[in-house]
Every structure is written in C-alpha cells, then in structure tokens.
C-alpha cells in the first residue's frame, strides 16, 4: 500500500517538475534590484516592524498570478491576445505603447542595478553592463524555451545568497518571525510611505503578460493545471521568503547599529561589511547582480511577447529569428537601449526616465487588473475554470487595494522621495 502511495507521489512530483517554471520565475523577478532596495531600506529604517506586510503581499501576488496562469492554461492564448480580441485594437495599442515606455525604464533600472551590484566587487560599469547585455541577449536569441527556462530557474536558485547572507548577520530570529504575524502601524508618514512602497511594487503589469505567455509557450495542458497552480503558489512564497531574509539582514545590521541612509541596494550590501563581514556583503551583492540579470532578461521578453501578440505577429523563444523578426528586434532593442542608457547617461539623467516608467506602470495597472478580472470571469473563454464567487471577492479587493496603493505611491513619488 505504502509503496503504491510512494509511486503515485513520485509520478505526481515528476509532473510537477515538468510543469514548474513560469510561476516561480515570474514571482522571483519581483525581487529585482528595485525590489531588493525597497526591502533593504524597509529593514534599515524600520527594523523588523514592517515584516508583517509580507503576508498580504504574498496573498495578493498568489491571487493575481494564479488567475493569469489559469487563463493561460485554459485558453492557450496570451493575455495580450485576449485583450485584443475583447477590447479591440486601439485599447491594446495604447496599452502596448505604455508597456514599452514603462519597460524601457524598468530595463534601465535593471542594468543600473547590475552596474551598482558589480561595483561592490570593484568592476567597472563600462565593461560589466555591455557584457551583461550581450549575455542576456544571446541567451534568448540562441536558446530554446526549455533551455532558457532552465537558466532562469537556476538563477532563481541563486537567490539563496540572501538567506545565507542573513544568517551571517546573526539576527534576532525569534523577534523577526514573530514580527511577521504581528501587524503594527507606527505614526509618521515615512512608515506609511514604506508600506505603500512595499505593497505597491509587488504587482506590475508586465508580470501578468510574461506569466501568461510563458504558460502558453510551455504548452501546459488542462490536466496539469493543478500543478501550474502550485508552481505559482510555491513561487510567490519563495519570493517573499527571500524578501523576508533581505529585510531581516538589513534590520539586524544597519538598523541595529543606528539609522543609516542607504542610496541603493549596493549601498545596503556595503553597509553589511563592518557588521556581518565580507562574505555577507559579497553574497548580498551577488544576489543583486543575479537579480538584475534575470530581470533584464525577462522584462524585455515580456514586452516582446506582448507587442507581438497585440499586433498579431509571431512570437516566442522557440521561433527562429527569421520566423519572428519583430519579436527578436523588440527584445534586442530594449536591451540595447537599456544598457546604453546606463553606460552613457549620468545617474541624475536616468532618474526621470525611471520615474516616468513607474508612473506609466501605475497608470496601466488598474486597466490591466480590471481587464484580467473581467476576462477570467467570461464563461465562453474559461468555462468551468471561471473565477468562483469567493475568489472574485478576494481578487477584487486585492485589485482595488493594489490600485489605491499604486496611486498613493505615484503621488508620494512626486512630493516625497520614497524608494521605488
């Protein structure tokens, strides 16, 4: 009997491993250099007190991503395809332009993160950024979907650098774990801004497009949907566990040693050195570089998928360059521009572009979320896999909260500097 159960468990595990990928990757890209900086500053400024926000963040992420993955599996079409079929060409086109602008800004900030992460190791940005760009470009242009996905998954494993780095910082474990389940609010707008920043950056429009297209390109079958769901859940949980370790590492060191201002994620890495040692710093910076490379790859990819689907052109990593020229040109162009901006521009010049991309992201998010909710409730599209009542309630609340926070975050960015 037990042997039978073991065999069936093994079989299920094998299917899971075959399906796993899109959900974990998409969630992990949420911890891009911008995300890592946000978590670092949360820990550095407020210690363990903000850890509780990770619980709602994880739930929100799971709810939204599960919906998208489900749409991908059930319809076999990308989100952009569905939006085009449902809302027509103009809506799709305007979203497309917004996404292009936002993702160009995002790509610039990923490469900036790569440059600052490597500066911890004393490498020059003039060498590192072009090198990183070529690496990221070659991976997708030369690779097949399966290979590229494997590389992404390995990159997700490298986030283990943060937990290790955190252990080296010797934090107060008991206090930190308790803080996760103890919501607290401090007076003062700095704290509120920080909450808005933490939650508001969790869900970005491009993620939905990437996840759905990846699920479709992977060709996950309806029968495997349950595993796909777990792919999403595991991915979101892992991502926020990593976030937990980032916050705790910074809280145990930078916060504990008296308030310290940190300018970017590389600063946080350097601040660990006197408190947790060289290894902790190196690991922290390595995690940053890895995150930057992964997201520098996936953001342009998501954009290329989206634009091609919207215009009805061929797209996909499995296609050859000749079969999907626009797809590859978009991907190449975004990476080239993003890398070039970091190499050529001074930092003050990058800031307005990155800020603009944040704003555009914020403007787009409500539309994308509402489209998603409406699409996933359509019976002719989703059949038995429509949202349930309970799910809808949770999803709508999530989306409304997300939209409000995004609006607040945008407002905050104009009147007050908060990390983005």
């Amino acid at each position, binding site marked *: 009997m037990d042997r039978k159960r073991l065999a069936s468990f093994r079989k299920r595990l094998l299917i899971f491993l075959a399906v796993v990928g899109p959900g974990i990757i998409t969630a992990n890209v949420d911890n891009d250099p911008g995300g890592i900086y946000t978590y670092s500053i949360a820990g550095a400024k407020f210690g363990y007190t903000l850890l509780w926000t990770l619980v709602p963040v994880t739930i929100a992420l799971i709810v939204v991503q599960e919906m998208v993955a489900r749409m991908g599996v059930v319809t*076999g079409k990308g989100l952009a395809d569905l939006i*085009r*079929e449902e809302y*027509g060409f*103009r809506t799709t*086109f305007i979203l497309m332009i917004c996404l292009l602008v936002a993702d160009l800004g995002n790509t610039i900030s990923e490469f900036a993160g790569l440059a600052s992460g490597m500066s911890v190791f004393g490498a020059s940005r003039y060498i590192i950024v072009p090198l990183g760009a070529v690496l990221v470009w070659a991976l997708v242009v030369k690779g097949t979907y399966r290979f590229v996905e494997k590389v992404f998954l390995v990159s997700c494993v490298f986030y283990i650098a943060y937990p290790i780095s955190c252990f080296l910082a010797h934090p107060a474990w008991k206090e930190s774990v308790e803080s996760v389940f103890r919501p607290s609010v401090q007076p003062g707008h700095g704290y509120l801004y920080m909450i808005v920043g933490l939650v508001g950056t969790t869900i970005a429009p491009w993620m939905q497009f990437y996840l759905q297209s990846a699920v479709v390109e992977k*060709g996950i079958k309806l029968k495997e949907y349950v595993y796909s769901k777990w792919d999403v859940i595991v991915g979101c949980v892992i991502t926020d566990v990593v976030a937990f370790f980032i916050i705790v590492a910074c809280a145990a060191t930078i916060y504990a040693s008296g308030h310290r201002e940190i300018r970017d994620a590389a600063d946080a890495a350097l601040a660990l050195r006197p408190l947790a040692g060289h290894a902790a710093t190196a690991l922290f910076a390595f995690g940053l570089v890895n995150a930057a490379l992964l997201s520098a790859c996936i953001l342009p990819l998501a954009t290329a998928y989206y634009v091609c689907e919207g*215009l*009805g052109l*061929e797209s996909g990593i499995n296609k050859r360059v000749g079969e999907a020229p626009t797809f590859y040109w978009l991907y190449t162009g975004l990476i080239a521009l993003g890398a070039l901006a970091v190499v050529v521009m001074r930092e003050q010049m990058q800031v307005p572009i990155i800020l603009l991309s944040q704003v555009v992201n914020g403007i787009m998010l409500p539309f994308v979320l509402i489209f998603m909710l409406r699409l996933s409730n359509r019976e002719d599209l989703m059949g038995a896999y429509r949202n349930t009542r309970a799910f809808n309630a949770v999803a709508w609340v999530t989306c409304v909260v997300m939209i409000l926070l995004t609006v607040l975050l945008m407002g905050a960015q104009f009147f007050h500097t908060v990390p983005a």
Partner: protein
Amino acid sequence: METRRCCALLWEEAVIYFTEIQNLPTYDVMGAYVGRVVDLGIDPNQNALRIAAYFVETREKKLVYVPREQMQSITVRSAQTSVTRAEIHSNKTFGDLLRVRKDVLDQQVIDVDHRKVVRVNDIDLEIQPTNGHTELRVLAVNVGLASAVRRLLQGLTAKHTSRKISSFIPSRTIPWEFVNLIEPDASRRLKLRISYERLARLHPADIADILEELSRDEQRSVIEALDHETAAQAISEIPTEKQAQLLQSIPVEKAADIVDEMAPDEAADVLQELPPETSAKLLADMETEGAQDVKDLLGFEENTAGALMTTHYVALDRAATVENVIEAMKGFEGSVESIHSVYLIDTEETLLGAVPLARILLAPARTPLQELSRGEVRSVRPETDAKAVIDLFRKYNLLSLPVVDDKQHLQGVVTADDVLDLVVGRR
C-alpha cells in the same frame, strides 16, 4: 480630368471599411433616426460573400435587425433603410450568422495564400447598388499597417481624413476567399459552412507551421475539420511532444483514425509520448493491421535503429521481376515517396539484396531483380545506436537502411528523413 474625378468618387464610395460602418448612424425611409450599426452578418448558406443583415443598436440600447433587402443606401456618413422604423423594430432575429465584428475583426485567421496566421485589423467591403437597394460584398480582410493606423484614428478624426492619412501607408489585404476562419465550436462550424478545403491543399509541413501558431482549441478545431490523411501528414510534421498534446485534445476515435494514417514509426513515437492508458485506448481503436505495425515498433529503446525504423517497405521474393515491383508499388499502403529501394527476401524474410528504384526504372520489364541487386547489402540491428546509424547514412550517402535481427530477417527500414530529423534535433 473627368476620369480622375470619377475615380475619386469610386474610391470614396465604392469601398467601405468595416470600421467606418461601425457606429454608422442609420435612418429610416422617412429620415427618422433608427440607431447605430454595431455588426454585420453573413449567411454562408445563402452567399458567403454578401452581407445578409445589419445589426443596429437603438438609443435605448436595443438590438434590431435590418435584412439586406431593406437597406436603401450606405455611405461613409450614414445608412438609410427603405422601410420605416416600426417595421425594422418588428423584424425577427436571424439564425446563426457569421458576425463580422464578433467572429472576424481582431480575431486570428489563417491566410492560406501566405501560409500563416494573422490578426484582422479591418474588413474591406464593396458597396453595390442592386435593383433598388444597396448591398455590401466582402472583398478582403485588412492586416497591414494602414488599417492599424485607421483603427487608431477611428472616431478621432473625420473618416475622410483617416482615409487620406492611411492611404500614404502600405496596406496589406488578404482576399476573402483566402481567409480561413477558426471556429472552435464544431456545430457552429457546420452551420456556417466553415471548411478548411483550401488549407488542406497546402503542403503538410505548411499546415503544421500554421497549427503551431494556433492556441490549443483552435488547433483542435482545425484538426477535427481536416480529413484523416491530411491531418496525419500535418501532425507528422510537428515536434513529437506537441503531437501528443494535440492528440490528447481531440476525441479518441478521431485521434485513432489519425494515428492509423501516420507512418508506423511516427505513430510509435507519438504513442510513446502519450500516457500509457491513452496509448492503449488509441491502439485498441485503431485498425488491427495498423495497430500491429505500431506495436512491433513500440518495444525499442529510444535512440536506436529500432526506434527510428518504419515497417512500411517494399520487399519481394528474389525471383521477382521489374514488373512485380510496379505491381507491389501500386498496392503499397504507406506513402510511396518514402520508397528508395526494393528489398529482396526469401520465404523466411531473410534479407538477400536491395535494388535502388532508379535502377529498376532503367531496366526492361522482364528483368529479374536479382540481376540488378549489388552484392552485399548494408544493414543494422534494431539495437544499433542512432549515432552509428547517422554515421552510416553520412558515410555511404544512404537514402534508406534495412534493419535485420540476428538471423538476418528483415525487420524494418530506416529512411533518410527520420535521420535528418534526428540530426537537427526535432525528436
């Protein structure tokens, strides 16, 4: 001068785009406002090129129908019916029609002419005055940049301005007869007479490319609508894992018929990809002979000659003549194009020789095959590693290679196309 004006008029009024008709204000015979056009319907059972009905939305958001006979005139500015508003309101709904906005605009369609899948930006219609009323004929679907620009400007500028602007931009249209709609619902497909006749005439490899562009439901709908043989040939051209996905999404009987039509080695590859219970079901549903051929191949390890070979070959007794070869070819079950050599065997099926087809062509009809056969035949064992097979093909420029067991009994033949697939990594 005269002709130019006439052309301009024609250009203005002869062709109208669907996006210009969308929201066109409609008036009745007395000039009273009826509503706005929201969609057009085509009845393929009557005439697949003609707009049969207009769907008009009134101010009260009610949908009314105007059959084509009641449409007096259509211009870029407005439409006028030949009956009163009250009559229009009393019109009955139509049965199932092909809806231009719902089924065509912004949907993916197959462009049979260019052998790819495209998204429709707009539909070109021709205005035809016909005995006392106006008819619209569907000319083409628009997929180019010009129509995209027109869509973006829709409602922002006057229609003439949008036309002017888009006329400077290259436009790409697909004649309506080359458009294949994809309708996942089988009963509706039948009702609307959506057939894939034109698609079925393409080369299987092109059909396979098109299939790969479609989402799962769309793939299923196309496969279900193709005849077994075409479907089998097309499915043979796509990567094995995708074949498995496709076959799992269609009803078992249909899948079995398709697998039956596939070459035995291809069929075996697919069945190995499928979950065991599904393969068993398929094998049970296949015709006994085909199923046996496939079963013989299922036992072999992957990446061996046995897994590569097909059991469809022409083998004749050593006493056979050129004439017999022609008869045997006529009675051959599989695809004759894959035959490069004829094998000579004895009653025990022991491989004795091989004769290339080309030499048979050049020989007189009565020549015994033995005379044409050249000494030793190169052959491999079923367990021979695929790499070794590839090397033999490369070294001796082979087109086919017989596979024999330890007693020299002919088991099957590996053909060059399978080897090529292996080399470029399609399996």
